[in-house]
């Protein structure tokens, strides 16, 4: 039983990172209807920039963290302006393919600059484990979980109360109506990419503190799909919850598969089997908007 409890807790930690990445994905999808296959690469770039500033430029962690955020902001702006804006109005497959191409470019840039070896962050938090529900858990795990929760609250408040957040929701709801109310759609698109890149880079920094980073980090971007499909493609709360559920689910399934079926590596595929099942029975997820077509 303790084995499974351990799995649930580590699943929650991984899940909170999935939630962060899914949050970025949903922000972009909600505002611009772009499905971003490069979300995992944004995580990776953020992690590597923070690594370069902390280890290679020897800045204090907190400074490099904020500089990483600033860099991600600019990166998101550049991607939206240079790559996505020319494709407004093109078919879905073109937009999907352009983000896939973008992910290849980002991945190869990271490999060219930093190579393919695993790089390890210097420890930021103390190493002694904290007891959670009678189990020892590393402080960085707890910090990751709390940080994800705080970010989720900040973004919820941002979308609910701030002028810009409300403008973004209005754009997501109806672009034409929003434009006629004087909202600059271009600004909203750019802003959503900036926010998504920043959130993803925070996920990357947390992940770097837990496991170290390598050029395969981008695969995390694929895990975001089960999370957002479960939560509903355009729901922030759904993304946060979906990420946590998928994180726990894949860890527990992996443990069970090892124990009962003696099957290794089930982790990578469990979430996707679950994804197909959700798509079959509830394609718009738990909190997504149903698209109704009438003739």
């Amino acid at each position, binding site marked *: 039983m303790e084995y499974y409890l351990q799995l649930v807790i580590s699943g929650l930690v991984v899940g909170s990172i999935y939630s962060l990445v899914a949050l970025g994905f949903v922000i972009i999808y909600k505002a611009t209807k772009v499905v971003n296959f490069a979300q995992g690469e944004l995580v990776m770039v953020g992690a590597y920039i923070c690594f370069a500033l902390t280890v290679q430029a020897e800045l204090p962690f907190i400074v490099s963290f904020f500089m990483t955020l600033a860099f991600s902001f600019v990166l998101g702006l550049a991607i939206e302006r240079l790559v996505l804006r020319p494709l407004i109005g093109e078919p879905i497959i073109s937009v999907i393919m352009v983000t*896939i*191409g973008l992910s*290849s470019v980002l991945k190869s840039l990271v490999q060219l600059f930093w190579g393919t070896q695993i790089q390890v962050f210097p420890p930021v938090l103390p190493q002694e484990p904290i007891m959670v529900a009678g189990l020892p858990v590393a402080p960085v795990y707890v910090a990751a979980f709390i940080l994800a929760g705080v970010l989720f609250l900040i973004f919820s408040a941002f979308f609910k109360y701030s002028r810009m957040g409300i403008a973004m929701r209005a754009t997501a709801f109806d672009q034409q109506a929003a434009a006629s109310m004087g909202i600059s759609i271009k600004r909203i698109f750019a802003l959503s990419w900036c926010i998504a890149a920043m959130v993803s880079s925070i996920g990357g920094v947390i992940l770097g503190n837990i496991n170290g980073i390598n050029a395969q980090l981008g695969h995390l971007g*694929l895990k975001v799909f089960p999370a957002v499909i479960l939560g509903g493609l355009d729901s922030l709360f759904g993304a946060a919850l979906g990420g946590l559920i998928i994180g726990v689910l894949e860890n527990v399934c992996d443990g069970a598969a090892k124990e009962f079926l003696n099957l290794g590596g089930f982790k990578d595929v469990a979430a996707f089997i679950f994804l197909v099942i959700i798509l079959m029975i509830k394609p718009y997820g738990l909190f997504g908007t149903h698209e109704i077509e009438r003739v």
Partner: protein
Amino acid sequence: MHGQCGLFFRTYAGEAQIFPSRFLKISMLLFFLVLCAVPHFMNQYLVSILCLINIAVIGAVSLNLLTGTCGQISLGHGAFFGVGAYTAGYCAAFGLPFPLVMVLAGLVTAAVGMIFGLPSLRLKGIYLAIATLAAQLILEYVFLHWDAVTGGSNGLALDPPSLFGFSFDSDLKMFYLTLAIACLTVLGVRNIMRTKLGRAFTAIRDYHLSAEIVGVDLFAYKLRAFGVSSFMAGMGGALWAYYTMYITPEQFGIGLSISYLAMVVIGGMGSVLGGVFGAIFITILPEALNFIAQHAGEAFTDISGSLLAMKEGVFGLVLVLFLIFEPEGLANRWRLVKAYWKLYPFAH
């Protein structure tokens, strides 16, 4: 003395011809003869690239039927290709004859493709793309872990195919075999596109609700699109297995699916010629980079070390640039070039 300028058709059958003019027939025949003769004057490396292009053409044209013509985005084509390859590997181990193995590979892949096409009843656009992405990852897992059939991470080895006692044991012989099947695929897809089936696919792509109103059974035709496309992908995968003679799960990863989609997008969606162009372009691109790196390596010593990363980066960059500056693909550019020379020098 005056001749006809342009093509005029008075019947639908005339308009639906694959080769409408005598000039086209003759030039295709000449092209085909040159294509058959050229490999005799090439070294083995170049012939092997031609073989890879032939196999890629099968994959790209079949995916173009599904994605370009029927509008169903599939991120799982690489895995379907793998299903064909593994079926061929498994059947060949029992000593089944080559043509039977090819047909079996096609049929098994068609069945798998139709199973993963089932969600297309309820899903479209991005949801379907994600469902096929799941298919890709699940199939990859099966390739790696169903040891009894796929050999797991050790892979499967095959003998070169033989037909009526004639063994295709060199690159040159494989070139003719792959060329024959690639031509059959291209002609097959071209023919499908001018039948009821093809028109139904186009109708579904253009607007599914209108298609349903005019009496196209959406589910049946989407499933058929998955079935036909996967059948051809399976044949392509079987050929790939016979050609490389050794298959492992990594060969059929998400990267393969992405490069097939890239071929379709770069070549031109919904056009058979586009699939062919895309396959040629994407297959030659990494080889061209190799060539450049070898020659640039003399000037810059450390360039070849990061070649792998650069290949991926250039692939992504080409994809992005094509989508931004040439969204209609190479097939459209080819059409424009032809139109330019057709009326040269009187362009109006």
